[in-house]
């Protein structure tokens, strides 16, 4: 029984982000770049859980196909299996990375998500990530309540939510687009000023993350 020609399966989306037909190959390429950025960024980047869902779907389809394979060409099966493990790894690693970031400051994740929604920006969290953040925030708050805060005098019963503080985190950034233009970084010699840098294609920089945050979101910079 022949394996379904999944490599030429075209997926189209109503979603604004996908104007053109996207192949599973391109989805995987985008997932790899997204995963790399998420690992290297100090804060949550806008969610790309849709890519994860598409790939999980692809994995399931392929697993069913391999199961049906009657021809015992061992190499083919092994190659498929390893590919599935690779895709399984990258999707799980991406999800785990994001969960970890949510857990490190769930209230900030929720606040940032709401703020972005108000500003009409792309979602920071997917629906299930948001639910996770809310449930986790509650579990954590219950823990602190029952062990410490319950026993405090009234004035000390509330703890402030820690801010997400990523202003001074440095990242390695590679310029992947041709028309990134200029980027502003803080001027250490004039606290009110900025220094303007030219970002040439293929150049690599050690730079404060905040200065390239938007460019990373836009896909013009790859974090290393």
């Amino acid at each position, binding site marked *: 029984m022949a394996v379904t020609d999944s490599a030429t399966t075209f997926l189209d989306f109503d979603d604004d982000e996908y104007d053109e037909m996207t192949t599973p190959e391109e989805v995987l390429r985008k997932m790899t770049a997204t995963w790399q950025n998420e690992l290297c960024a100090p804060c949550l980047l806008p969610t790309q859980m849709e890519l994860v*869902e598409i790939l999980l*779907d692809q994995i399931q389809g392929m697993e069913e196909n391999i199961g049906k394979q009657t021809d015992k060409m061992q190499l083919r099966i092994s190659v498929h299996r390893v590919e599935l493990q*690779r895709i399984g790894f990258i999707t*799980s690693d991406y999800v785990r990375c994001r969960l970890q970031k949510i857990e490190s400051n769930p209230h900030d994740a929720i606040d940032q998500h709401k703020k972005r929604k108000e500003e009409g920006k792309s979602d920071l969290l997917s629906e299930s990530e948001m639910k*996770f953040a809310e449930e*986790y925030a*509650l*579990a954590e708050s*219950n823990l602190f309540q029952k*062990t410490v805060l319950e026993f405090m005098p009234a004035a000390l019963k509330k703890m402030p939510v820690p801010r997400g503080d990523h202003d001074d985190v440095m990242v390695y950034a590679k310029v992947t687009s041709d028309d990134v233009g200029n980027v502003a970084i803080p001027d250490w010699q004039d606290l009110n000023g900025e220094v303007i840098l030219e970002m040439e294609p293929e150049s690599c920089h050690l730079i404060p993350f905040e200065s390239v945050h938007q460019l990373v979101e836009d896909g013009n910079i790859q974090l290393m």
Partner: protein
Amino acid sequence: MSSGDQNRGGVADKALQLVLEMKRNPDVLPPYNTELVRQCYQKIDELFQKNAAVVEKIRAGLPHDSTLLQPRLAAMCHIRRCMMAYVNERKNRIRSFRWKYGGALPASVRNALCDAEIQFFNEYSSTLARFQSNLGEGGVNLLLHSAPPKSLFVQVRALEDYGEFETSDGTQVQLSKDSLHSLPRQDCEMLIRQGVLELVH
């Protein structure tokens, strides 16, 4: 920080001990120190009462000494900060247990947790389980694929008499203590994590 710093007769000595307890035990989670935590919030209460007494005098227009109001408040905040750091460090380790052991804690670990911590573990566990089950069609176990795949098969040794085990390609394997096997890596991940199998190099 030397142990000489611990008992300087300062208001935050007990709070410091809480923090040091976690620092001194990086690998093993010590039992929740209910007694020390209680001493800390009692100290906060003591300081609070002293401040309250001064405030009373101010309200009643009586002579008072307000010089210690601010320092006492700072001390209370500091003790609270130490208590929060203690619970927070334990919380982080408890979270890592979920990723190590799955949803069921070994008794030795459970015994080191207070009730609130056990509740946190359970709530964290089910929150994670709900999230995982929403991934893809049938859910995803995020404990798997913890590292990039190196090979399809791994060499393992069974550490106990586990019994029969069926691999993902349908093969039945008998896992008896010290037996050696070459198994699909994906099938082994959970068993390795649980200490039933160990990798052989």
